[in-house]
């Protein structure tokens, strides 16, 4: 690559570009920082730090509130009496109980059952 073959004869255009870059470097010297550079920097750092502190505090408050609310809800739900219709038996048991209360099955259904049975 032409850029890195330093020992080879240079294309005049390449040499001109290098000359321009060198002159640009000379035309843009490192500027002197202003006298208030450090005070301004510390001011910005402090500003950002206080903002970060505020944000952290707000986050902590919100997280604390969320935890407290969760605990409160947990306690309330745990202490609540189960409703009257609370199911203590399984689905099959409830079905069986209903079946016995309703009396015998439809005779047609019984006939089909008998046909299927060997």
């Amino acid at each position, binding site marked *: *690559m032409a*850029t890195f073959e330093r020992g080879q004869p240079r294309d005049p*255009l390449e040499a001109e570009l290098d000359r321009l870059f060198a002159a*640009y470097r000379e035309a843009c010297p490192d*500027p002197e920082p202003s006298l208030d*550079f*450090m005070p301004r920097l510390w001011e910005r750092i402090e500003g950002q730090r206080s903002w970060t502190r505020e944000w952290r505090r707000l986050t902590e408050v919100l997280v604390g509130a969320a935890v407290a609310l969760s605990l409160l809800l947990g306690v309330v739900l745990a202490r609540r009496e189960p409703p009257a219709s609370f199911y203590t038996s399984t689905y099959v048991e409830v079905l069986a109980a209903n079946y016995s209360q309703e009396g015998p099955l439809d005779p047609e259904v019984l006939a089909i059952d008998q046909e299927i049975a060997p």
Partner: protein
Amino acid sequence: MLVEFELVKRAREGDHTAFTQLVQAYRKRILGTIARLIGRPEDVEDVGQEVFLRLYFSLDQLRSEEVFEPWLYRLTVNAAYDYLRRQRRRGEARMADLSEQHVMLADAAAGSRAQQEEQRRRQLRETVQTLLANVSEQDRMLLVLKEIEGLSLKELEKIYRVNENALKVRLFRARQRVLKALAAAQGAAARAKGSA
């Protein structure tokens, strides 16, 4: 390194005096790099402040004191890039247009030798910035760091965390584009001279 590793270590540990010393040691060099990267002297200090602000809040992420300089350069490149992107979004007058205004003002005021010298420098800056405008902002920064700041490929490798070959390819392509623009500019200048 412009400072001892010990100073970087102390700054990392939250020593404000050490951080101040660190900034004082590097600020001039970093401001110079920013000036050549963004091409707008009036905004150099603001971008410089941003670099050191980011440095302060990211020092704890520094793996070791040895990589401090590449780290600082990476922050510089990122801050300069963010600045240029903001400028592009705002749709402000491009550098070349601004320089034109400055040149007009300077033309009116030019009289003394110092002013003429300043005008020559300004025109040179404008020429190089116009040439660099032919490549993307990322490539332009890479080219500035290599060709103008004089950073080695090894240093660039650490800053960009990209392998040397990939950097060489990018640099070569960027340089070819700038060379093409230079050839076109020289051709246009020669034609203008011929017709005059």
